[in-house]
Each structure stands twice: as structure tokens, then as C-alpha cells.
């Protein structure tokens, strides 16, 4: 693997926006979909940019992830393929979510290119809007040292923060590079061609960066196995599971911000949730001593784990969007790891890998059926 060093005197965002400009100027990219700070300065949204001047103010690696990039891309390609070439600048988890959506035919990847960056994680959006300046500073520190306080718990355990197992075209390496420097790498053939056309020569050896990525991944993998083993006890049995989700107020925000949840009519919003008559509730309350309102809380969470667990990329949007700080994303990561292992499936790795529930082998899984 080879790449090119880019100067980042004005921070990562400045360096990447210069690259984006030269890609745009070379004419091989018609538009760029990239996070940009909103005018109030408090948060970021995705902007589909055609005017190269506007790339000056883009923020390819914002400190927070209030909008999951896959959702932005989903809106863009809702009616099928786009006719112009779009370069999407996203975190690796956002690229992976886009791939999962493409498998579910909710995103069309034709004429879509991806650029990702080594991602140290994101801060909690709610913390950020309260004090953007202080958190910007903190994030800069995290970027320099590749660790620091305030990262979302999911991000601390993310092993897909670089470009391995993420089907991107271009990648910006940041881990362990010299201060004020980054490396840009053409990962796919198309990516290499793009850089070539933009006059960015990729001939430098990047093995030093790769070693650093490996080190950082080992550390995160360690965090992950620790968290998972803790959850194994904390989430064992219905009593414990009930405690984990006890604060849930059934706002279903985790579902709405999840990039993979796409159904326009959600099973959990459908009418069978309210079809029970008062007598039925009384009967149930009689049997149990009392019943919880709002109801169907456990069904919602376990059901969502069933619906999404295989495709969960661990972006943490659910937990970030939860007003009650329920550790949704961590529970998902725990269950997701298990079911993904069962089917030997890595979500978002490749569009060639079918979603396990949409395919089958004739001779398999006999341990789950009655002989």
C-alpha cells in the first residue's frame, strides 16, 4: 500500500478540504457530500457541495456525529442511482452502514465514491451543543494523542476505525502520523485513478502508519472484549435485561436515528401495539400483579436486536440519540458480535456478501430444528 503525505498545518479538516478541492477541480468528482458546521456553530450537518469555494468551510472529521452519513446518502439516492459522481466523505462506520443499506436496496452505490478517515471516535452530541468551543479543543487533543476523555463508549470499543474491512475508495490516515501531517491513500482502483487525475502522486510507503493502526486496533479490541465480558453478566437473564432497559421511555428515537432501520411502517409502531383492550390489560395485571406502561419495551429492544443485530455497524447513533442514557449501542455490540460470529458475517465489509437472513444453505443449522 502506498500513499501521499499531505500537510495539515490548519488541522485535518483544512488538509482534507484542500484534497477535496483538487479532486473537484480535476473534474472527476461532480459533487462532494461532506459534514459541515452549521451557522450557529453548535453542530454539523451533511452538505452536498457543488461550489468548490464552499469546500473551504467543510469539516470532514467533525467531533460529533449528529447525522449518520448513511442516512444522508439514503436521502440522496432514494429514487435510484445518481447520474453525477458524488464523493462521500464519512467516518468508516458511516461507510459501512451505507453498504448495509445498499444490500437492502435503500442506497444505490452507482457513481458514489467513498472517502473515509481514521476516526478516533466521536463526542456525545448533547455534550457538544452545550459547549462547542471547549469540546473542539478537547477533540483536537484526542486527535493528537489518539485518546482522551469524553468519547462515546461505543467509539472506545470500535475496531473498524480505519480502512481495513471498509470498502472505501480513498482513505486519510491519521493514527501515528507526524503532527501537522496526514497520509492519503487510494484504497481501491478507482481511488488511485482519482488521486492520479488530481495530480496527487502516491508513491510513499505507508507501513509505519499501518503499524500504528494495528497498535490502536489492538487497544480498542482489548477495550471491546472487556466491555463485552462485563455485559455478559450485566445482561444475563430477563431480570438483568429489564434493569438495563429500565430507563427506556419508549420514545423510539434509537430506531429513528439508526442508519440501518429503514422501514417506513415500523413493526413496533404498527397498530397491534395499541389493539389490546382495557380488559386484556386488567387480566394481565391480575396475573402479574401489575403491568408496565408504556408497554412492549422489551419486545421493542429485543426485536430491534433481532432485526438489526446482524447489520449493526456499531456507529452508536442510537445511544447518542437516547434521552435517557440507556446503553443501547453497547447491548447491540454485545449481541451483534455473537450473531455476526454465528453466520461469519462482517456488516459493511463488502456488497458481495449477502445478508445472512436473505440467503441459505440446504444443509446447515440442524441443531436448531427438530429432528
Amino acid at each position, binding site marked *: 500500500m502506498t500513499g501521499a503525505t499531505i500537510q495539515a498545518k490548519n488541522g485535518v479538516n483544512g488538509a482534507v478540504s484542500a484534497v477535496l478541492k483538487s479532486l473537484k477541480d480535476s473534474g472527476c468528482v461532480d459533487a462532494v457530500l461532506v459534514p459541515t458546521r452549521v451557522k450557529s456553530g453548535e453542530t454539523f450537518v451533511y452538505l452536498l457541495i457543488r461550489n468548490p469555494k464552499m469546500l473551504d468551510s467543510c469539516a470532514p472529521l467533525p467531533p460529533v456525529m449528529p447525522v449518520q452519513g448513511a442516512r444522508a446518502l439514503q436521502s440522496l439516492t432514494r429514487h435510484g442511482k445518481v447520474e453525477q459522481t458524488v464523493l462521500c466523505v464519512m467516518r468508516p462506520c458511516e461507510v459501512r452502514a451505507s453498504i448495509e443499506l445498499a444490500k437492502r436496496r435503500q442506497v444505490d452505490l452507482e457513481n458514489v465514491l467513498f472517502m473515509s478517515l481514521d476516526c478516533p471516535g466521536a463526542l456525545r452530541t448533547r455534550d457538544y451543543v452545550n459547549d462547542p468551543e471547549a469540546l473542539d479543543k478537547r477533540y483536537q487533543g484526542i486527535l493528537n494523542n489518539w485518546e482522551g476523555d469524553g468519547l462515546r463508549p461505543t467509539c472506545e470499543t470500535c475496531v473498524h476505525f480505519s480502512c481495513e474491512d471498509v470498502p472505501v475508495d480513498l482513505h486519510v490516515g491519521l493514527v501515528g502520523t507526524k503532527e501537522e501531517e496526514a497520509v492519503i491513500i487510494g484504497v481501491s482502483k478507482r481511488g488511485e485513478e482519482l488521486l492520479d487525475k488530481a495530480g496527487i502522486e502516491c508513491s510513499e510507503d505507508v507501513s509505519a502508519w499501518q503499524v500504528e493502526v494495528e497498535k490502536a486496533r489492538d487497544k480498542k479490541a482489548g477495550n471491546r472484549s472487556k466491555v463485552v465480558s462485563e455485559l455478559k453478566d450485566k445482561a444475563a437473564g430477563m431480570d438483568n435485561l429489564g434493569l438495563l432497559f429500565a430507563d427506556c421511555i419508549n420514545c423510539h428515537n434509537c430506531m429513528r436515528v439508526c442508519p440501518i432501520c429503514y422501514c417506513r411502517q415500523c413493526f413496533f409502531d404498527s397498530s397491534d401495539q395499541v389493539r389490546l383492550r382495557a380488559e386484556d390489560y386488567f387480566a394481565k395485571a391480575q396475573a402479574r400483579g401489575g403491568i408496565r406502561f408504556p408497554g412492549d419495551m422489551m419486545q421493542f429492544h429485543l426485536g430491534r436486536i433481532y432485526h438489526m443485530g446482524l447489520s449493526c455497524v456499531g456507529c452508536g447513533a442510537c445511544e447518542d440519540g437516547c434521552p435517557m442514557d440507556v446503553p443501547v449501542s453497547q447491548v447491540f455490540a454485545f449481541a451483534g458480535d455473537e*450473531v455476526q460470529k454465528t453466520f461469519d458475517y462482517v456488516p459493511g465489509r463488502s456488497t458481495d456478501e449477502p445478508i445472512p437472513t436473505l440467503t441459505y444453505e440446504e444443509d446447515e443449522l440442524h441443531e436448531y430444528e427438530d429432528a
Partner: protein
Amino acid sequence: MADKFEPNIVGFLCNWCSYAAADLAGSNKLEVPATLTTIRVMCSSRVDPVMLLSAYLRGADGVLVAGCHPGDCHYQTGNYLARRRFALMHKILETFGLDSNRFRLSWISASEGKRFSEVTNEFAEHITKLGPNPLRKMPFIE
């Protein structure tokens, strides 16, 4: 009156095989657990496992899914997909240490009335040994 536990079992039966088998069991006067509630579905793959979960969380003691034997699906591949989905749900239940043994997937063809009676009775016996669904007594869960 002695409180003998009779398990409430919800059975999702595929229209083309297992539901017909249930019918045949009836015509042949074979015994089937009286507390089996059957739900006819057009295919075992019509059953979103969330429905199984729903039955369990709402207090069913056992949940059965039955369809055509692999290779015999009326829609060619439905039961293969159902098996994957069932396995996925099973895995999730196991992961959280929940009662995955209260769920069963069986293949019963339209001509197997006897097998339908055997499978349901055997399953009811198995659930009787497990006892009632503990969730029936948990006020904060559903």
C-alpha cells in the same frame, strides 16, 4: 381444584403442510394438547421471529413454528429462510441467557398427522417439565 400446570403453547403452522397435518390429526382422532393455540401462516418464513418473542414476552410457555420439510416448501425456499431466522433469534436468546428452550422449530408435512400429534405432545411435556413462563409473574417486563 388442584392446580395442575398445563402449558400454553402458541404454534405458528404453515398453511400447506403443518396446518394440514393438524387437520389430519384431528380427522384421525389423534390427541393434541388442548392448550395449543394455533396460528395459521402462509409459510414458516412469514413468521418474523419478533412474533415468537411477542408470544413469549406476553406469557406463552412454549412457542412452536412448524413448516414443510426442507426441500418441500410450497414457495421453494421459505423454510430454509425460516430456519436461518429461527437460528438467529435462538442465538440472541442464548446470548442474553433467556429461555431459548421454550422455542421449537419442526418440520411436519401434510400427511404426517401422527407426527403432528407426537411433536406437539412431546413439546408440551417438555414445557411442563420447564414449568410456567417466569415472565408471567414479572410486572416490569414485556
